[in-house]
C-alpha cells in the first residue's frame, strides 16, 4: 500500500439541494433546506395514518423513529460528512491491493496458475434426444394444423360445389320455366295463363333443395340437387281419349273409361324436374280442355243432347254412332290393371282428334292475347276492336253475332269427328266395291291436301285394257262434314247423304252406265255406227238401283247390229241382229220381190254372254264386233 506512485482520486459531493433558479450570470440559487420540524412534518405526511392495522403500528413508529433519528443524525457535528466516502475508498483500495498481489504471484507461475474455462462441444445424449423430440413435436404440430385446415377447406369446397350445383340447376330451371321468389320460398308458374288461358287453376309449383344426399357414399347418376313439388291434383299424367264407336246398348258402363297407354320414353339428358313439370303442365291443359268441353256440352242446345258423365262426354254425331271424349288421368300410383277387359279391344283412340283438341285450345289462348284485343285509346277496356264499333256504328244483333265466335270447342271437334268418320266410311265403301267387282274396275285417287272439314277423292271407273278409250265416267267426290257432293264429268252435281248405301248404289249405277258408254266409245274406234243410245231406258224391268242403259250399234256394212241393255241389277243383255239372208226361220214372202231386200237386218238373236270369250265386257264386245265384221 505504501509502494508505488500516488494516485489522484477526484470526487465531487452529491448535490443534495435542488436548484431553484439559475441567474443570468450563472449563479445557482438553491432551495433552502427544510428545518427539522418541516422535515418531520414531511415524513409524517408520508405515513398512512388512516389504516388501523395493529401489526403495522410498530413499523410506523419504527419508521418514525428512524426518520427522526436520521434527522437527528444529520445535525451531529462530531461525525465527519466524508466518512462514508472514506470508507468506500478504503475498501476499494483493499480490493485493488489484493488483485495486485494475486497478479504478482501469478506472474511467477510458481505458486498459482491460470486455467481457461473449458468449452465442452459435445452435449449429453439425453439432452439431444429431448431437444430432437421437442423439435419434431413442433413440426408435427404444424403439419397437423395444416392438414386440418386442408380437410376443412375440402369439405367446404364440396359443400360449395353442391351449393353451386343447386344454383346452376336453378339457372337451368329458370331458363325454361317462370320462377319468382316469395319470402324464403321459390315458386314457379306452370299454367298457361301468361299464354292467354283463362282457366282458374293457379298452377304454382315450389322449388326445393334436395338435401338427402350422403356425401360419403357415391353420388347416384340421376342425382339432382333440385326438386320440384307440383300441386297434388296435377300429379301423374293424363291424355284426352277421343273415340268413335257403335252406339252401346247399355248406358250402365258410362264413365268407366280407364284405358291407359304407356307413357312416352323420356328423352335422355332431360332432368327429372323437367319431366315432372311437363307432365303436370300436360295434365293441366287436358283438364282445361275437358272443362271447356263439358261446359259447352251442358250449355249448348243441340238436337240430341250431349251426355256428360264423370270424366266422359258422349255425343251422337250420326245415328247409331257414338263419339266419346274422356279425360284419362292416372296418378301413377297403381300399376295398369292386367285384368282390364278393355285390353282386348283394339285401340280406337283417334290421335288426330286429340291433337286437334290441343291445337284448338291453343288457338283459343292466342286469341285472347292477340293485339286485336288491345285497347286504343288506352283507357278503354279490353275487347275485340271491331266489337268496340258496335255502339257508335249502331250494329244490330245479327251483325254483332257475326262478329263473335259462334262455334265452341265441342262443336268444332264433333264436326271434325263427323268428317273423319265419313271419310273413312267412304274409303271403305269404295274399297269394298273395288275388291268385289272386277269388271269394270274402280280407281280412287285421294287428294293429299285436305282440310279438317273437307276432303276430296277422284273416282275413275275403267275397263282393264281399255283405259284410254273408255274414260267417260270420272267422278269427283267432295266429302264434307255431313254430305258428299259428287261432280260428274258431264257436269251433273249430285249430293249424297251420309248413308253408306247411297254411295254404294250410286257407284253401282255408274258402273253399269260405264259399260254402255264403253260400247259407244268402242264403236267409234271399230268403225261401227251408233244407232241409238240412252242412259236411262224406260223399257224393260224396273231396276231397284238406278236405271238401265241401252245402246244399239250397227256394223260398218250395215248388215249386223248389236243391242246392249245393261242394268245395275239385271246385268247385261246383248242381242245381235243378223241380215235377213242369214235368218233361217224367216218365211218367204212374195211381198219382197228383189233380192237386195235380203241384205236388210232381220230378227234378233240373244248372245250367251256368259259363254263368250274374253276377260271383260269390253273385250268380249270387241271380239263380237270383230266377229260380225266380215273380212273383205
Amino acid at each position, binding site marked *: 500500500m505504501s509502494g508505488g506512485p500516488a494516485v489522484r482520486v477526484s470526487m465531487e459531493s452529491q448535490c443534495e439541494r435542488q436548484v431553484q433558479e439559475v441567474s443570468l450570470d450563472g449563479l445557482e440559487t438553491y432551495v433552502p433546506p427544510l428545518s427539522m420540524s418541516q422535515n418531520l412534518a414531511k415524513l409524517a405526511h408520508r405515513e398512512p395514518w388512516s389504516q388501523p392495522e395493529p401489526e403495522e403500528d410498530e413499523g410506523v413508529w419504527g419508521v418514525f423513529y428512524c426518520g427522526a433519528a436520521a434527522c437527528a443524525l444529520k445535525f451531529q457535528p462530531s461525525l465527519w460528512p466524508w466518512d462514508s466516502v472514506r470508507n468506500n475508498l478504503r475498501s476499494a483500495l483493499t480490493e485493488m491491493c489484493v488483485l495486485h498481489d494475486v497478479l504478482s504471484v501469478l506472474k511467477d507461475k510458481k505458486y498459482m496458475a491460470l486455467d481457461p474455462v473449458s468449452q465442452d462441444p459435445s452435449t449429453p445424449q439425453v439432452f439431444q434426444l429431448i431437444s430432437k423430440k421437442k423439435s419434431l413435436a413442433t413440426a408435427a404440430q404444424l403439419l397437423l394444423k395444416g392438414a386440418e385446415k386442408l380437410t376443412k377447406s375440402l369439405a367446404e369446397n364440396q359443400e360449395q360445389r353442391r351449393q353451386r350445383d343447386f344454383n346452376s340447376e336453378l339457372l337451368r330451371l329458370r331458363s325454361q320455366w317462370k320462377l319468382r321468389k316469395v319470402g324464403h320460398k321459390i315458386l314457379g308458374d306452370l299454367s298457361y295463363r301468361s299464354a292467354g288461358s283463362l282457366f282458374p287453376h293457379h298452377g304454382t309449383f315450389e322449388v326445393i333443395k334436395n338435401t338427402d344426399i350422403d356425401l360419403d357414399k357415391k353420388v347416384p347418376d340421376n342425382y339432382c340437387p333440385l326438386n320440384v313439388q307440383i300441386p297434388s291434383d296435377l300429379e301423374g299424367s293424363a291424355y284426352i281419349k277421343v273415340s268413335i264407336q257403335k252406339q252401346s246398348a247399355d248406358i250402365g258402363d258410362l264413365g268407366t273409361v280407364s284405358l291407359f297407354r304407356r307413357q312416352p320414353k323420356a328423352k335422355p339428358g332431360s332432368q327429372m324436374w323437367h319431366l315432372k313439370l311437363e307432365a303436370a303442365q300436360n295434365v293441366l291443359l287436358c283438364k282445361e280442355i275437358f272443362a271447356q268441353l263439358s261446359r259447352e256440352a251442358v250449355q249448348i242446345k243441340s238436337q240430341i243432347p250431349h251426355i256428360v258423365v264423370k270424366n266422359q262426354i258422349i255425343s251422337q254425331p250420326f245415328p247409331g254412332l257414338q263419339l266419346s271424349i274422356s279425360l284419362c288421368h292416372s296418378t301413377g300410383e297403381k300399376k295398369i290393371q292386367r285384368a282390364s277387359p278393355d285390353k282386348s279391344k283394339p285401340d280406337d283412340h283417334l290421335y288426330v282428334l286429340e291433337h286437334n283438341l290441343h291445337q284448338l285450345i291453343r288457338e283459343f289462348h292466342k286469341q285472347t*292475347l292477340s293485339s286485336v284485343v288491345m*285497347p*286504343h285509346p288506352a*283507357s278503354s277496356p279490353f275487347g275485340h*276492336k271491331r266489337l268496340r264499333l258496335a*255502339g257508335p256504328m249502331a250494329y244490330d244483333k245479327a251483325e254483332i253475332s257475326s262478329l263473335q265466335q259462334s262455334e265452341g270447342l265441342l262443336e268444332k271437334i264433333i264436326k271434325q269427328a263427323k268428317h273423319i268418320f265419313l271419310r273413312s266410311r267412304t274409303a271403305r265403301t269404295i274399297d269394298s266395291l273395288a275388291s268385289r267387282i272386277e269388271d269394270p274396275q274402280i280407281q280412287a285417287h285421294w287428294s293429299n291436301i285436305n282440310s279438317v272439314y273437307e276432303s276430296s277423292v277422284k273416282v275413275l271407273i275403267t275397263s282393264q285394257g281399255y283405259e284410254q278409250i273408255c274414260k267417260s265416267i270420272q267422278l269427283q267426290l267432295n266429302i264434307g262434314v255431313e254430305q258428299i257432293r259428287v261432280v260428274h264429268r258431264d257436269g251433273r252435281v249430285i249430293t249424297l247423304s251420309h248413308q253408306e248405301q247411297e254411295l254404294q248404289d250410286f257407284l253401282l249405277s255408274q258402273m253399269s252406265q260405264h259399260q254402255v258408254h264403253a260400247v259407244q266409245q268402242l264403236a267409234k274406234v271399230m268403225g261401227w255406227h251408233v244407232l241409238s243410245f240412252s242412259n236411262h231406258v224406260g223399257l224393260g224391268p224396273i231396276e231397284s238401283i238406278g236405271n238401265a242403259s241401252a245402246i244399239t250399234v250397227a256394223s260398218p256394212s250395215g248388215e249386223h247390229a248389236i243391242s246392249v241393255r245393261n242394268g245395275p241389277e239385271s246385268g247385261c243383255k246383248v242381242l245381235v241382229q243378223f241380215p235377213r239372208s242369214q235368218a233361217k226361220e224367216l218365211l218367204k214372202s212374195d211381198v219382197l220381190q228383189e233380192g237386195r231386200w235380203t241384205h236388210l237386218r232381220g230378227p234378233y238373236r240373244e248372245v250367251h254372254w256368259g259363254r263368250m270369250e274374253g276377260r271383260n265386257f269390253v273385250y268380249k264386245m270387241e271380239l263380237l264386233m270383230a266377229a260380225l265384221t266380215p273380212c273383205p
Partner: protein
Amino acid sequence: MEAPPVTVMPVTGGTINMMEYLLQGSVLDQSLESLLHRLRGLCDNMEPESFADHELVYLLKGQQGNPFMLRARRSLLHPTAPWHLRYLGQPEVGDKSRHALVRNCVDVAASHSLPDFLNEMGFRMDHEFVAKGQVFRKGAMKVVVSKLLRVLASGNTENTEPMSLSYLVELSILAPAGQDTMSEDMRSFAEQLKPLVHLEKIDPKRLM
C-alpha cells in the same frame, strides 16, 4: 202518337256497375327501360303495344255542388277507332285494408262527333293533354306506362311538351261490383315491381 214508354228506374245492370281498381306510381325517364323489361317479362307474352292518345276533360257546372266530369279520349295512332267516353265516380270509402283504389267506372264508345255532342249538352272543356306510352296486359290486369304531354295550343296535338321528367304507371282492373279478390292479385303484382316502381293507392281528393 204517344211517346214511347221511358222507364224512370235507374239502370242497374250491364256495364253500369263496373268498378275500377287502380294503383298508381311513377318512374323517372332514365329508369323507364328497366321497368319496361320487367313488365315484358311479368306480363302476358305479346308484342308491346304502343299508344298515343289525346284526352279532353269536360265539366258540366251545375248550380249546386261539384261539377260533373267526363273524360273523352281518342287514339292518335288509330284515327278511325271510336272515341272513348269515361265517367269515374268517387273512390269508395271501404275498409282501409283494401289495397287498391276502387271507384265506379262507366265506359262508353262513341263516334267522332262526341266533342260537338258534349258541347251541345252543355259541357265545357276544362283541359286536355296527350298521353304516349305502352300498354301491357296480364290476364284481366292492365298496366299503362304513359308520359303526359301538355298541349300548348288548344286542339293542336302536334305541338306538345312533356309535363314532367317521369312516366306515370297505372295498374288497373275493370270488374263487376262486389268482387274483392282483385285487389289481392294487384297487390302481389305490385310487389313484384317493388324496387323499380312503388305502386300505391293515391286518393285524388288528397291531391287537390
